[in-house]
Protein backbone atom coordinates (compact mmCIF):
# COMPACT_ATOMS: atom_id res chain seq x y z
CA UNK A 1 0.00 0.00 0.00
CA UNK A 2 1.62 3.21 -1.17
CA UNK A 3 -1.19 5.71 -0.74
CA UNK A 4 -1.00 6.87 -4.38
CA UNK A 5 -4.02 8.07 -6.35
CA UNK A 6 -5.12 7.87 -9.95
CA UNK A 7 -6.93 10.92 -11.27
CA UNK A 8 -10.15 10.62 -13.27
CA UNK A 9 -11.24 14.19 -14.04
CA UNK A 10 -12.05 15.62 -10.64
CA UNK A 11 -12.12 12.20 -8.97
CA UNK A 12 -9.13 10.68 -7.22
CA UNK A 13 -9.09 6.93 -6.65
CA UNK A 14 -6.50 5.33 -4.35
CA UNK A 15 -4.24 2.64 -5.78
CA UNK A 16 -4.36 0.85 -2.41
CA UNK A 17 -6.21 -2.45 -2.61
CA UNK A 18 -7.76 -3.53 0.67
CA UNK A 19 -9.06 -6.79 -0.79
CA UNK A 20 -6.09 -8.61 -2.29
CA UNK A 21 -5.95 -10.10 -5.77
CA UNK A 22 -6.11 -13.90 -5.93
CA UNK A 23 -9.69 -13.98 -4.67
CA UNK A 24 -12.07 -16.57 -6.06
CA UNK A 25 -15.04 -14.54 -7.28
CA UNK A 26 -16.29 -15.85 -10.64
CA UNK A 27 -14.89 -14.49 -13.89
CA UNK A 28 -16.38 -11.01 -14.49
CA UNK A 29 -18.13 -10.75 -11.10
CA UNK A 30 -19.81 -7.38 -10.51
CA UNK A 31 -19.93 -7.98 -6.78
CA UNK A 32 -16.11 -8.32 -6.67
CA UNK A 33 -15.76 -4.96 -8.42
CA UNK A 34 -18.32 -3.33 -6.12
CA UNK A 35 -16.45 -4.62 -3.07
CA UNK A 36 -13.09 -3.47 -4.43
CA UNK A 37 -14.41 0.07 -4.96
CA UNK A 38 -16.30 0.19 -1.64
CA UNK A 39 -13.16 -0.80 0.28
CA UNK A 40 -11.16 1.88 -1.52
CA UNK A 41 -13.76 4.38 -0.28
CA UNK A 42 -13.51 3.14 3.31
CA UNK A 43 -9.72 3.08 3.65
CA UNK A 44 -7.74 1.20 6.27
CA UNK A 45 -9.34 2.36 9.52
CA UNK A 46 -12.28 -0.04 9.47
CA UNK A 47 -13.55 -3.19 11.09
CA UNK A 48 -15.66 -5.28 8.74
CA UNK A 49 -18.25 -7.82 9.85
CA UNK A 50 -19.11 -9.98 6.85
CA UNK A 51 -22.05 -12.37 6.62
CA UNK A 52 -21.70 -15.64 4.75
CA UNK A 53 -22.13 -15.35 1.00
CA UNK A 54 -20.02 -14.95 -2.14
CA UNK A 55 -17.97 -12.12 -0.61
CA UNK A 56 -17.10 -14.07 2.50
CA UNK A 57 -16.40 -17.33 0.69
CA UNK A 58 -14.39 -15.82 -2.16
CA UNK A 59 -12.17 -13.70 0.10
CA UNK A 60 -11.36 -16.19 2.86
CA UNK A 61 -10.26 -19.54 1.41
CA UNK A 62 -8.26 -21.10 4.26
CA UNK A 63 -5.29 -20.99 4.71
CA UNK A 64 -5.21 -17.54 3.10
CA UNK A 65 -7.25 -14.36 3.19
CA UNK A 66 -7.79 -11.48 0.80
CA UNK A 67 -8.39 -9.02 3.59
CA UNK A 68 -5.88 -6.32 4.44
CA UNK A 69 -8.20 -4.70 6.98
CA UNK A 70 -9.67 -6.21 10.18
CA UNK A 71 -12.44 -8.55 9.17
CA UNK A 72 -14.68 -11.03 10.92
CA UNK A 73 -17.05 -13.61 9.48
CA UNK A 74 -20.57 -13.50 10.90
CA UNK A 75 -23.57 -15.73 10.54
CA UNK A 76 -26.44 -14.57 8.35
CA UNK A 77 -28.74 -13.73 11.18
CA UNK A 78 -26.43 -11.74 13.44
CA UNK A 79 -24.44 -9.35 11.25
CA UNK A 80 -26.39 -6.35 12.58
CA UNK A 81 -25.93 -7.53 16.16
CA UNK A 82 -22.24 -8.21 15.69
CA UNK A 83 -21.46 -4.81 14.21
CA UNK A 84 -23.49 -3.21 17.05
CA UNK A 85 -21.31 -5.04 19.57
CA UNK A 86 -18.10 -4.02 17.82
CA UNK A 87 -19.17 -0.39 17.77
CA UNK A 88 -20.28 -0.40 21.41
CA UNK A 89 -17.10 -2.24 22.44
CA UNK A 90 -14.79 0.26 20.72
CA UNK A 91 -16.70 3.14 22.29
CA UNK A 92 -16.35 1.80 25.80
CA UNK A 93 -12.67 0.84 25.37
CA UNK A 94 -11.89 4.36 24.22
CA UNK A 95 -13.96 5.89 27.03
CA UNK A 96 -12.09 3.86 29.62
CA UNK A 97 -8.76 4.84 28.09
CA UNK A 98 -7.95 1.23 27.18
CA UNK A 99 -7.23 2.24 23.61
CA UNK A 100 -6.41 5.59 22.01
CA UNK A 101 -9.32 7.68 20.73
CA UNK A 102 -9.52 7.42 16.97
CA UNK A 103 -12.02 7.16 14.20
CA UNK A 104 -12.58 3.52 13.29
CA UNK A 105 -15.45 2.83 10.93
CA UNK A 106 -17.65 -0.13 11.80
CA UNK A 107 -18.92 -1.66 8.57
CA UNK A 108 -21.26 -4.60 8.01
CA UNK A 109 -21.12 -6.38 4.65
CA UNK A 110 -23.77 -8.87 3.50
CA UNK A 111 -25.57 -10.18 0.43
CA UNK A 112 -29.23 -9.63 -0.41
CA UNK A 113 -30.21 -12.95 1.17
CA UNK A 114 -28.22 -12.08 4.28
CA UNK A 115 -29.89 -8.68 4.41
CA UNK A 116 -33.45 -8.64 3.12
CA UNK A 117 -34.28 -12.14 4.36
CA UNK A 118 -32.20 -13.60 7.15
CA UNK A 119 -30.34 -10.66 8.69
CA UNK A 120 -33.25 -8.23 8.70
CA UNK A 121 -34.19 -8.49 12.37
CA UNK A 122 -30.69 -7.85 13.74
CA UNK A 123 -30.20 -5.05 11.22
CA UNK A 124 -33.48 -3.39 12.15
CA UNK A 125 -32.43 -3.51 15.81
CA UNK A 126 -29.04 -1.96 15.04
CA UNK A 127 -30.72 0.86 13.06
CA UNK A 128 -33.23 1.47 15.83
CA UNK A 129 -30.59 1.64 18.57
CA UNK A 130 -28.76 4.21 16.44
CA UNK A 131 -25.35 2.55 16.48
CA UNK A 132 -22.69 4.41 14.54
CA UNK A 133 -22.13 2.00 11.67
CA UNK A 134 -22.42 1.55 7.92
CA UNK A 135 -24.25 -1.41 6.41
CA UNK A 136 -23.41 -2.41 2.85
CA UNK A 137 -25.79 -4.78 1.11
CA UNK A 138 -24.29 -6.32 -2.04
CA UNK A 139 -27.38 -7.25 -3.99
CA UNK A 140 -26.91 -9.89 -6.68
CA UNK A 141 -30.60 -10.72 -6.42
CA UNK A 142 -30.41 -14.31 -5.13
CA UNK A 143 -28.53 -16.67 -2.83
CA UNK A 144 -25.73 -16.98 -5.34
CA UNK A 145 -23.01 -18.61 -3.32
CA UNK A 146 -25.06 -21.75 -2.77
CA UNK A 147 -26.29 -21.96 -6.35
CA UNK A 148 -28.81 -19.28 -7.36
CA UNK A 149 -31.68 -19.82 -4.93
CA UNK A 150 -34.38 -17.13 -4.90
CA UNK A 151 -34.41 -14.46 -2.20
CA UNK A 152 -36.91 -11.70 -1.48
CA UNK A 153 -34.61 -9.44 -3.53
CA UNK A 154 -34.93 -11.61 -6.66
CA UNK A 155 -36.84 -9.62 -9.28
CA UNK A 156 -40.20 -10.63 -10.71
CA UNK A 157 -39.84 -13.02 -13.65
CA UNK A 158 -36.27 -14.15 -12.93
CA UNK A 159 -35.58 -17.87 -13.13
CA UNK A 160 -33.65 -19.33 -10.19
CA UNK A 161 -32.93 -22.89 -9.12
CA UNK A 162 -35.62 -22.82 -6.44
CA UNK A 163 -38.14 -20.88 -8.53
CA UNK A 164 -37.32 -22.10 -12.04
CA UNK A 165 -39.17 -20.92 -15.10
CA UNK A 166 -41.10 -23.62 -16.93
CA UNK A 167 -44.48 -24.52 -18.37
CA UNK A 168 -46.29 -23.66 -15.16
CA UNK A 169 -44.23 -20.80 -13.82
CA UNK A 170 -42.46 -17.64 -14.96
CA UNK A 171 -39.91 -18.10 -12.17
CA UNK A 172 -40.07 -15.49 -9.40
CA UNK A 173 -43.71 -14.48 -8.95
CA UNK A 174 -43.21 -11.67 -6.43
CA UNK A 175 -41.81 -8.15 -6.85
CA UNK A 176 -38.38 -7.38 -5.46
CA UNK A 177 -38.41 -6.33 -1.82
CA UNK A 178 -37.35 -2.70 -1.56
CA UNK A 179 -34.65 -2.89 1.09
CA UNK A 180 -33.47 0.71 0.72
CA UNK A 181 -36.98 1.95 1.53
CA UNK A 182 -37.09 -0.34 4.56
CA UNK A 183 -33.87 1.30 5.75
CA UNK A 184 -35.39 4.75 5.12
CA UNK A 185 -38.39 3.77 7.25
CA UNK A 186 -36.03 3.44 10.23
CA UNK A 187 -35.43 7.17 10.07
CA UNK A 188 -31.63 6.84 9.89
CA UNK A 189 -29.41 9.71 8.72
CA UNK A 190 -28.17 8.20 5.45
CA UNK A 191 -29.50 5.72 2.89
CA UNK A 192 -28.27 5.38 -0.68
CA UNK A 193 -28.34 3.06 -3.67
CA UNK A 194 -25.22 2.48 -5.77
CA UNK A 195 -23.86 0.40 -8.62
CA UNK A 196 -20.25 -0.33 -9.68
CA UNK A 197 -21.05 0.81 -13.24
CA UNK A 198 -20.97 4.30 -11.66
CA UNK A 199 -17.74 3.93 -9.67
CA UNK A 200 -17.30 7.53 -8.49
CA UNK A 201 -20.91 7.74 -7.33
CA UNK A 202 -20.44 4.43 -5.46
CA UNK A 203 -17.19 5.58 -3.85
CA UNK A 204 -18.76 8.91 -2.77
CA UNK A 205 -21.75 7.20 -1.23
CA UNK A 206 -19.75 4.62 0.69
CA UNK A 207 -17.46 7.39 1.92
CA UNK A 208 -20.43 9.48 3.02
CA UNK A 209 -22.08 6.50 4.69
CA UNK A 210 -18.87 5.82 6.61
CA UNK A 211 -18.53 9.42 7.77
CA UNK A 212 -22.12 9.99 8.88
CA UNK A 213 -22.66 9.79 12.64
CA UNK A 214 -25.22 7.10 13.33
CA UNK A 215 -26.52 4.28 11.13
CA UNK A 216 -26.06 4.43 7.36
CA UNK A 217 -27.17 1.97 4.69
CA UNK A 218 -25.92 1.63 1.11
CA UNK A 219 -27.64 -0.85 -1.19
CA UNK A 220 -25.25 -1.88 -3.98
CA UNK A 221 -26.56 -3.45 -7.17
CA UNK A 222 -24.05 -6.19 -8.01
CA UNK A 223 -24.40 -7.84 -11.44
CA UNK A 224 -23.64 -11.57 -11.34
CA UNK A 225 -22.79 -13.26 -14.66
CA UNK A 226 -23.14 -16.73 -13.16
CA UNK A 227 -26.58 -16.29 -11.64
CA UNK A 228 -28.05 -13.89 -14.18
CA UNK A 229 -26.62 -15.79 -17.09
CA UNK A 230 -25.02 -13.12 -19.24
CA UNK A 231 -21.53 -13.08 -20.87
CA UNK A 232 -18.64 -12.37 -18.48
CA UNK A 233 -17.71 -9.05 -20.09
CA UNK A 234 -21.11 -7.39 -19.60
CA UNK A 235 -21.24 -6.45 -15.89
CA UNK A 236 -20.77 -2.74 -16.49
CA UNK A 237 -23.35 -2.55 -19.31
CA UNK A 238 -25.91 -4.53 -17.32
CA UNK A 239 -25.49 -2.16 -14.36
CA UNK A 240 -25.85 0.89 -16.59
CA UNK A 241 -28.97 -0.57 -18.21
CA UNK A 242 -30.51 -1.28 -14.79
CA UNK A 243 -30.08 2.39 -13.91
CA UNK A 244 -31.06 3.82 -17.30
CA UNK A 245 -34.25 1.73 -17.51
CA UNK A 246 -35.27 2.84 -14.01
CA UNK A 247 -35.12 -0.73 -12.72
CA UNK A 248 -32.46 0.27 -10.20
CA UNK A 249 -32.49 4.05 -9.73
CA UNK A 250 -29.49 5.69 -8.06
CA UNK A 251 -30.63 7.92 -5.21
CA UNK A 252 -29.72 9.14 -1.75
CA UNK A 253 -31.85 9.89 1.27
CA UNK A 254 -30.08 12.25 3.65
CA UNK A 255 -31.98 12.90 6.87
CA UNK A 256 -35.17 11.88 5.12
CA UNK A 257 -34.61 14.09 2.06
CA UNK A 258 -34.59 12.29 -1.27
CA UNK A 259 -32.24 13.11 -4.13
CA UNK A 260 -31.93 11.31 -7.48
CA UNK A 261 -28.29 11.12 -8.56
CA UNK A 262 -28.96 10.09 -12.13
CA UNK A 263 -32.17 11.18 -13.74
CA UNK A 264 -32.62 10.61 -17.43
CA UNK A 265 -35.34 12.67 -19.06
CA UNK A 266 -36.61 9.46 -20.63
CA UNK A 267 -36.11 5.97 -19.27
CA UNK A 268 -34.95 3.24 -21.64
CA UNK A 269 -37.40 0.35 -22.16
CA UNK A 270 -36.93 -2.45 -19.59
CA UNK A 271 -36.63 -4.92 -22.43
CA UNK A 272 -33.10 -3.65 -23.16
CA UNK A 273 -32.09 -4.68 -19.64
CA UNK A 274 -33.95 -8.01 -19.60
CA UNK A 275 -32.92 -9.29 -23.05
CA UNK A 276 -29.19 -9.95 -22.50
CA UNK A 277 -29.83 -12.02 -19.38
CA UNK A 278 -30.56 -15.75 -19.47
CA UNK A 279 -32.58 -15.59 -16.25
CA UNK A 280 -35.26 -13.55 -18.11
CA UNK A 281 -35.00 -15.33 -21.47
CA UNK A 282 -38.38 -17.08 -21.11
CA UNK A 283 -40.38 -13.89 -20.54
CA UNK A 284 -43.07 -13.18 -23.12
CA UNK A 285 -44.19 -9.73 -24.23
CA UNK A 286 -47.10 -9.66 -21.78
CA UNK A 287 -44.79 -10.22 -18.82
CA UNK A 288 -42.30 -7.68 -20.08
CA UNK A 289 -45.13 -5.14 -20.38
CA UNK A 290 -46.15 -5.93 -16.81
CA UNK A 291 -42.59 -5.31 -15.60
CA UNK A 292 -42.48 -2.06 -17.57
CA UNK A 293 -45.69 -0.89 -15.94
CA UNK A 294 -44.36 -1.72 -12.48
CA UNK A 295 -41.08 0.10 -13.12
CA UNK A 296 -42.95 3.18 -14.38
CA UNK A 297 -45.08 3.22 -11.25
CA UNK A 298 -42.17 2.76 -8.85
CA UNK A 299 -40.09 5.36 -10.64
CA UNK A 300 -42.96 7.87 -10.52
CA UNK A 301 -43.31 7.26 -6.77
CA UNK A 302 -39.61 7.89 -6.29
CA UNK A 303 -39.77 11.07 -8.38
CA UNK A 304 -42.68 12.29 -6.27
CA UNK A 305 -40.60 11.81 -3.11
CA UNK A 306 -37.71 13.69 -4.70
CA UNK A 307 -40.07 16.47 -5.77
CA UNK A 308 -41.23 16.93 -2.15
CA UNK A 309 -37.76 18.16 -1.31
CA UNK A 310 -36.90 20.07 -4.49
CA UNK A 311 -36.07 23.78 -4.23
Amino acid at each position, binding site marked *: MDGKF*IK*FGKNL*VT*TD*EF*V*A*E*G*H*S*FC*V*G*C*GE*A*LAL*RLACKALGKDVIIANATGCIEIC*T*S*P*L*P*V*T*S*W*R*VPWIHTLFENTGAEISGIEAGLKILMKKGKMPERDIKCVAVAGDGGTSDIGMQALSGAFERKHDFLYLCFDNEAYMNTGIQRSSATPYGASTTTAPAGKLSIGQTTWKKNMAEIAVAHDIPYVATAC*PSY*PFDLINKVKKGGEVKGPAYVHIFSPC*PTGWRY*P*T*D*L*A*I*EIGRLAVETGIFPLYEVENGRYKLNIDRPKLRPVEEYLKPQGRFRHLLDGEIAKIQEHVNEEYAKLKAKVACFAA
Partner: protein
Amino acid sequence: MTEKRLKTGPDFIWRDMEVGNIVTEAGSAALRRTGDWRSQRPIIDKERCNKCGLCWLYCPDVAIKLLEDGYYETDLFYCKGCGICAKVCTREAITMIEEEEE
Protein backbone atom coordinates in the same frame (compact mmCIF):
# COMPACT_ATOMS: atom_id res chain seq x y z
CA MET B 1 7.12 -16.37 3.35
CA THR B 2 7.81 -19.90 4.61
CA GLU B 3 7.38 -22.96 2.43
CA LYS B 4 4.43 -23.95 4.58
CA ARG B 5 2.53 -20.76 3.88
CA LEU B 6 2.87 -21.20 0.15
CA LYS B 7 0.89 -24.40 0.14
CA THR B 8 -2.64 -23.99 -1.09
CA GLY B 9 -5.18 -26.27 -2.74
CA PRO B 10 -4.59 -30.04 -2.75
CA ASP B 11 -1.04 -29.76 -1.32
CA PHE B 12 -2.44 -28.24 1.79
CA ILE B 13 -3.43 -30.65 4.55
CA TRP B 14 -4.82 -30.13 8.02
CA ARG B 15 -1.34 -30.41 9.55
CA ASP B 16 -0.36 -27.23 7.72
CA MET B 17 -3.09 -25.29 9.50
CA GLU B 18 -2.15 -22.88 12.28
CA VAL B 19 -3.61 -23.76 15.66
CA GLY B 20 -7.14 -22.37 15.86
CA ASN B 21 -7.30 -21.98 12.07
CA ILE B 22 -5.62 -18.62 12.42
CA VAL B 23 -4.63 -16.84 9.24
CA THR B 24 -1.44 -15.01 10.05
CA GLU B 25 -0.83 -12.79 7.06
CA ALA B 26 -3.11 -10.05 5.74
CA GLY B 27 -3.79 -10.24 2.01
CA SER B 28 -2.07 -13.61 1.65
CA ALA B 29 -4.61 -14.63 -1.02
CA ALA B 30 -2.32 -12.70 -3.37
CA LEU B 31 -0.26 -15.92 -3.43
CA ARG B 32 -3.01 -17.63 -5.36
CA ARG B 33 -2.76 -17.76 -9.11
CA THR B 34 -6.16 -17.15 -10.66
CA GLY B 35 -4.72 -16.59 -14.13
CA ASP B 36 -5.10 -20.29 -14.89
CA TRP B 37 -8.90 -19.86 -14.98
CA ARG B 38 -8.54 -17.83 -18.14
CA SER B 39 -9.80 -18.92 -21.55
CA GLN B 40 -9.05 -15.60 -23.24
CA ARG B 41 -6.49 -12.89 -22.56
CA PRO B 42 -6.53 -9.12 -22.96
CA ILE B 43 -3.89 -7.50 -25.18
CA ILE B 44 -3.35 -3.77 -24.68
CA ASP B 45 -2.31 -1.76 -27.73
CA LYS B 46 -0.12 1.07 -26.41
CA GLU B 47 -0.53 3.00 -29.65
CA ARG B 48 -4.23 3.42 -29.05
CA CYS B 49 -4.12 3.79 -25.26
CA ASN B 50 -4.57 7.33 -23.92
CA LYS B 51 -3.76 6.39 -20.30
CA CYS B 52 -7.31 7.06 -19.12
CA GLY B 53 -7.15 4.18 -16.61
CA LEU B 54 -10.72 2.91 -17.05
CA CYS B 55 -9.47 -0.68 -17.49
CA TRP B 56 -7.68 -0.39 -14.15
CA LEU B 57 -10.75 1.09 -12.48
CA TYR B 58 -13.22 -1.56 -13.64
CA CYS B 59 -11.19 -4.78 -13.37
CA PRO B 60 -12.84 -6.96 -10.68
CA ASP B 61 -9.61 -8.90 -10.21
CA VAL B 62 -7.06 -6.11 -9.69
CA ALA B 63 -5.28 -7.55 -12.71
CA ILE B 64 -4.37 -4.29 -14.41
CA LYS B 65 -1.31 -2.52 -13.08
CA LEU B 66 -0.19 1.07 -13.55
CA LEU B 67 3.30 1.35 -14.99
CA GLU B 68 5.86 4.08 -14.24
CA ASP B 69 5.28 5.68 -17.64
CA GLY B 70 1.52 6.04 -17.05
CA TYR B 71 0.50 3.16 -19.31
CA TYR B 72 -1.26 0.07 -18.01
CA GLU B 73 -0.29 -3.58 -18.16
CA THR B 74 -2.28 -6.76 -17.54
CA ASP B 75 -1.12 -9.02 -14.73
CA LEU B 76 -1.65 -12.50 -16.16
CA PHE B 77 -0.94 -14.15 -12.81
CA TYR B 78 -4.39 -12.92 -11.71
CA CYS B 79 -6.34 -12.00 -14.87
CA LYS B 80 -9.33 -14.35 -15.25
CA GLY B 81 -10.06 -13.16 -18.79
CA CYS B 82 -13.55 -11.74 -18.26
CA GLY B 83 -13.18 -9.09 -20.98
CA ILE B 84 -14.59 -6.21 -18.91
CA CYS B 85 -11.44 -4.12 -19.51
CA ALA B 86 -11.85 -4.50 -23.28
CA LYS B 87 -15.52 -3.50 -23.05
CA VAL B 88 -14.98 -0.34 -20.99
CA CYS B 89 -12.02 0.91 -23.03
CA THR B 90 -13.39 3.82 -25.08
CA ARG B 91 -10.44 3.72 -27.52
CA GLU B 92 -10.73 0.06 -28.42
CA ALA B 93 -7.14 -0.37 -27.27
CA ILE B 94 -7.81 -3.75 -25.65
CA THR B 95 -8.63 -6.90 -27.59
CA MET B 96 -9.37 -10.33 -26.18
CA ILE B 97 -7.62 -13.29 -27.80
CA GLU B 98 -8.24 -16.99 -27.21
CA GLU B 99 -5.85 -18.74 -24.85
CA GLU B 100 -4.21 -21.79 -26.34
CA GLU B 101 -3.44 -25.09 -24.64
CA GLU B 102 0.15 -25.17 -23.41
